[in-house]
């Protein structure tokens, strides 16, 4: 052990500081700034979007999973700022909008393919339009400084300037890992390794020069096509394939055959996001585990591509035209909040008086929300126990594994983000604490801002 003290040079003051520029944080910062709070958004990369554009397969499930349930009405659950982002993306030629799955719709009913590059542009433009929002890119959080137990004074950030300090009245931890809230006295579980509820990490990548029609014809012939959707891609005037799912392992054997294969295409002859390799389960908070995962998965990318080129029609001239900037982490710390959704809450599709939105997708083939409906997300799920001036949104809420299979998804993270950002700003304006904020006031503001309520 060494004793280390840092000298910190600058201080920034704001009302609300949002940590992490993934979808939860980006939406949260917009909501906070628009509600009238002077807001700082801290993001470690040079762009916004986090896992939505690096690690996942685009957006989906703004609607309930209605297609496998003939009597279930089709309901758009995710609206508000998330829908505004989709509208902006469509306008900028970066999304097909919401499209219906043709095959495999018992998993996802509505898909919303997005172009990751247009997303980056649109996200930055949306932030620039907000006079109350100060965006800090290329900036990572180093430590949390407490005023007293359970109250955050500020955070130490690191950028090319060196170390600096952000002092804020309220914080919204959207870091995915709870990097700030976990150091401020919050109760949490660090889920890793072989424990129940731990996941592996994936590494999504992009394949260029693919003949999508040829590959789908082959998958259909061999009866291993699991998902299919078509849509009109930006700049195109006819429908083409935007989603492919395949079960290669039913026909092929070998080390390099992916056990699952899900891919979204937003551009011609390209699989923009391919999700088919994983490693783990592991401890995604461990530097050495992450380093090992990067090395193993980057090797797997090349091997998988070589296998596809040899064995799957349509891939013979293809190549890897990009990999995600980082392995995609699914879960690390689970933060205990005033309320933690139970499995029954989700599966039964329960409602709550303080719910801030609803969601219907569960990333687990064994579970569905009853009758293809949706469940409410109580405001209390965003209020961590033990910290007075911090809210959380994103993949670190929910203790139960199946609940987490649902709440960790991008569209649900956006719903939480809008509510947490709005709540943080209201706490500043009303001079109150998150646990004492009127959920009625919050819900009224969210309704006014177009977020969905049943």
């Amino acid at each position, binding site marked *: *052990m*060494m*004793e*280390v*003290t*840092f*000298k910190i*040079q600058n*201080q*920034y003051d704001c009302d609300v500081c949002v940590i992490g520029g993934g979808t939860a944080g980006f939406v949260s910062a917009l909501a906070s700034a628009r509600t009238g709070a002077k807001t700082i958004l801290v993001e470690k990369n*040079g*762009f916004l979007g986090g896992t939505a554009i690096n690690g996942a397969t685009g957006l989906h499930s703004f609607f309930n999973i209605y297609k496998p349930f003939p009597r279930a009405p089709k309901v758009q659950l995710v609206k508000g700022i998330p829908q505004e982002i989709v509208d902006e993306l469509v306008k900028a030629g970066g999304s097909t909008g919401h499209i219906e799955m043709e095959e495999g719709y018992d998993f996802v009913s509505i898909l919303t393919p997005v172009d*990751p*590059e*247009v997303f*980056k*542009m649109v996200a930055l433009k949306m932030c*620039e339009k907000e006079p109350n929002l100060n*965006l*800090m*890119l*290329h*900036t*990572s959080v180093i*430590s949390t*400084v407490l005023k007293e137990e359970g109250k955050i004074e500020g955070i130490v950030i*690191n*950028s*090319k*300037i060196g170390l600096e*300090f952000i002092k804020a009245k309220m914080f919204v931890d959207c870091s995915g*890992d709870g990097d700030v809230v976990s150091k401020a006295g919050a109760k949490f579980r660090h889920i890793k390794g072989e424990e129940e509820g731990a996941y592996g990490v994936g590494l999504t*990548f992009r394949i*260029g*020069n693919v003949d999508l029609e040829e590959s789908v014809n082959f998958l259909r012939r061999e009866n291993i096509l699991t998902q299919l959707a078509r849509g009109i891609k930006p*700049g195109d005037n006819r429908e083409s394939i935007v989603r492919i799912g395949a079960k290669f392992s039913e026909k092929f054997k070998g080390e390099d055959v992916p056990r699952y294969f899900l891919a979204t295409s937003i*551009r*011609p002859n*390209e699989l923009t996001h391919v999700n088919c390799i994983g490693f783990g389960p592991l401890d*995604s*908070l*461990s*530097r050495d585990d*992450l*380093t090992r995962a*990067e*090395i193993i998965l*980057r*090797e797997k*990318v*090349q091997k998988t591509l070589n296998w596809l080129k040899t064995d799957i029609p349509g891939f013979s001239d293809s*190549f*890897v*035209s*990009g*990999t995600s*900037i*980082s*392995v995609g982490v699914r879960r*690390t710390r689970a933060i205990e909040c005033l309320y933690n959704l139970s499995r029954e809450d989700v599966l039964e599709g329960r409602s709550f008086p303080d719910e801030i939105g609803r969601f219907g997708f569960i990333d687990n083939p064994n579970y569905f929300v009853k009758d293809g409906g949706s469940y409410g997300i109580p405001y209390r799920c965003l209020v961590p126990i033990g910290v007075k001036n911090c809210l959380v949104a994103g993949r670190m809420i929910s203790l139960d594994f199946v609940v987490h299979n649902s709440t960790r998804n991008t569209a649900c993270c956006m719903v939480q983000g809008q509510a947490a950002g709005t709540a943080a700003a209201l706490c500043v304006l009303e001079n109150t604490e998150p646990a004492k904020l009127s959920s009625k006031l919050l819900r009224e503001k969210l309704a006014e801002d177009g977020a969905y309520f049943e």
Partner: protein
Amino acid sequence: MMEFIEEPKRKTPVTGEYDVVVVGGGVAGIVSSIASARNGARTALIEQYGFLGGTATAGLMVSINGFRNQRKPNHIQTVRGIAQELVLRMHQLGGVYTKNTGYEQEEFDIDKGELPYSIVFDPEIFKYVVNKMVLESGVKLYLHTYALEAIIENKSVKGVIIHNKSGRQAILGNIIIDASGDGDIAASAGAPFVIDKDSGKRMAMTQMFRLANIDLSRTPEKIHGILIKNTYVSWGGSVDAIGTDAEDLTRAEIEAREKTWEKIEEIKKMPGFEDAFLIETATHIGVRETRRFIGEYMLKESDAINDVRFDDVIAISSNPVPAYYGYRYFFNHLGFDVPYRCVVPKEIDNLLLAGRNISMEQAPFQSARSMAPNMAIAQAVGTAAALCIKSGVIPRELNIRELQRVLKEQNAVISRE
């Protein structure tokens, strides 16, 4: 603002002890860590992203320039060693191109190990190959890890404070190589440096981008850009900004991104590009110039232009210097000597420099910052660090003849004869 805050003292766990710690996994860090480990030093390499390559991959600058001066008739290849090995290994996997590199150049036979002035590489194959080369050499990799500050005692560097998902830790090393590009660690150690705050002189930052769906049968014969398979990589938005200022860097990313999209609209008017679409922009805007440290010797513009020879030469740089000539003009000689003293910073011990932060005036810097000479210098730096460990001396006391002997033995080029 400007109210100083002192973070409370905290215990920081020591996570590793090494002979040599290299900060920054760009080309300079990759090559210096490989050279260090191959020469017997226990070596760690720290990188902020989950992959290596820095400007080559995160910056999407997919060409390596400066393997030789193109001036006829007697030009020679001035960079070999580990840089050449990297190119040949990527070539084996079909990841290297010598046509449409963005520059006119003479052809050479890569299969015989002869490299032209510039080569283009597939950035994904680059990531794959450098992971293998680094790990095969026995380097301990720390990915997703930021280097915060130098640990310094009596003007001597003892290690680096790092931060990652495991929290804050210390890594101790007998020699620290700052290959961070901006020299963040050397600066925090108190090594003296210069930085051009004069926007007229400082080199701009550029965001690289990549398009797909190009009809190669219809494109103009000469296109400004790089072709990899049927994708096109080129220089997008350029912005003048200070790379060591986070606020300026945020502004640069936003402005450059906007300009990149505008530029793509222009490109799409060219024949063959009508249906092209953007597949990626660089993860990190390309920063060309920030801190240049003051070493035991600062290489002068006149040294480079006049081909001044040095006894302690460790690499040769033959890439053009636009700042001097006003355009890309190759030297009238084969390339200039890079002395060992340029990588040894003044005032601070056990610290070496590799990459674009070495001790040079702007003109020679513009040449040596190119990836090929950059890697040649980095190989010398990593080798020097390992030799310091072997002989138990600090970098400024290293036996230069021994360093030069080992470099030659390991296929580095240090003379033009």
